[in-house]
């Protein structure tokens, strides 16, 4: 029965190959299964989920006010030393000295988008933006200042 076994083996082998070819043949003829996304062309319909962590930004309202008190909780929470907060002392109208933020330095090139700074922020001053096209030709451009020039602390945020 050697010959029968031999032929069975050949038949089984050929059949398994044909099953595979049937599957690839199906995809060859069914182009609607194609899943390619044409990236730079589909920028308009590209919907990133709102939680996507692209970079750290600081929200400013229409009065150019932000919520950052300069407590440097984010600086301490960051594992990579991405954030550097430079504080200054504002003199309030009553003549009292008050700590306020001067520059919020953010090194995008060091950031791993872990989101720990946003978690740590007690006033929700910073959040993660959806932008992801960060390539630049000059590395210096990746060091960002997050608070706008002449921006102020929002009233009521402590």
């Amino acid at each position, binding site marked *: 029965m050697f010959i029968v076994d031999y032929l069975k083996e050949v038949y089984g082998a050929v059949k*398994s190959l044909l099953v595979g070819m*049937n*599957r*690839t043949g199906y995809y060859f003829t069914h182009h609607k299964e194609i899943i390619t996304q044409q990236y730079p062309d589909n920028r308009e319909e590209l919907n990133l989920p709102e*939680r*996507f962590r692209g970079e750290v930004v600081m929200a400013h309202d229409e009065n150019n006010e932000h919520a950052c008190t300069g407590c440097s909780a984010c600086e301490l929470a960051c*594992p990579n030393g991405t954030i550097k907060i430079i504080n200054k002392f504002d003199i309030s109208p009553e003549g009292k000295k008050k700590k306020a933020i001067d520059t919020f330095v953010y090194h995008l090139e060091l950031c*791993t988008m*872990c989101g720990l700074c946003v978690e740590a922020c007690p006033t929700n001053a910073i959040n993660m933006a959806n932008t992801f096209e960060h390539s630049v030709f000059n590395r210096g451009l990746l060091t960002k200042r997050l608070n706008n020039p002449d921006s102020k602390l929002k009233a009521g945020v402590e």
Partner: protein
Amino acid sequence: MVEEIGKTAEGDLIINVGPQHPATHGVLHLVITLNGETIKKVEPHLGYIHRSIEKMCESLTYRQFIYCTSRMDYLSAHINNHACALTVEKGLGIEIPERAQVIRVLMDELTRIASHELWWGAMAMDLGAFTPFFHAFRERESINDIMEETCGARLTMNYMVPGGVMMDLHPNFQNRVKTFLKLYKQKIHEYDELVTGNIIFQNRMKGVGYLSKEAAISYGVTGPAARGSGVSCDIRKLYPYEIYNQLDFQEILETEGDSFARYMVRLREMNESIKIIEQLIDNIPEGDFQAKTKAVLKLPKGEFYQRVETARGELGVYIVSEGGTTPYRIKFRSPGFSNLSCLDHITRGGKIGDLIASMGTLDLVIPDIDR
């Protein structure tokens, strides 16, 4: 011939496979000694992506160091983070809310499926079939989309924090997972048609890279690689953590010990993960997603060891604490490291093609080995 294996002789060919080589999926460097096509010795050279994560973690706080572990085994980043979070919680002695536990388990199992999908595609590509790679990515992408929506990143999620998870599930989560389950069930039979049943594939895998049960234990091999040799080593079953002891799933065991057994373990494990997800997806309890923890975590003096089952095997996190805010010493017992150590044993006497097949079924992730 057999006694010659393992010794080098004049006329042997010594070949460097890697650090850049299509089959090593990263920067693994193998120095193989060949006699013709027959392998006499395989010697791994590591360290091309060694970042000394253990040393780095010594200067990071217990909240910060978790993100580092996503960069070890980047394909089961979630499970790595889970292990770290569990160890810190064990040290702090905090109970985490049930909702957080369910979310963690769901994410773990999704990660496991995603990791096995990628392994399946890469495995087939190692053996010369390019098409399965793209087909596997189709399913994997939908998992990545789910991850992106809930965790905010596709690969290095950093979703775990000590005490729970970073944020609540996205409102869409359940629907997205159900869509994925439907897609998965439609497509899973293609895996068998394209690869598993294929006669060429079976011939390449069966009887290749034999690892006996004793050798698997002696080498410390864990995960699907060991379960293919009949070693019961699923941490989820043996030492249950989170809610795994309440779930109904099987530990997949095959006894052949060859590459095909390891392959089948992984394929069947994906179905078990699907089973777990199906049990949980409609029963996510309401409640907090995070336990209340202090802003600065301080572990008491002592040693804490926690292990979890990643997609590749047993990941152990060993923290030695001196009572400060940073670990005194941290050790990651990574599954890939031990699995790699048996590579020489299982490939000796085979052909070059067998090396590729065996290496593929061990599912090595190089950053996990080098750390």
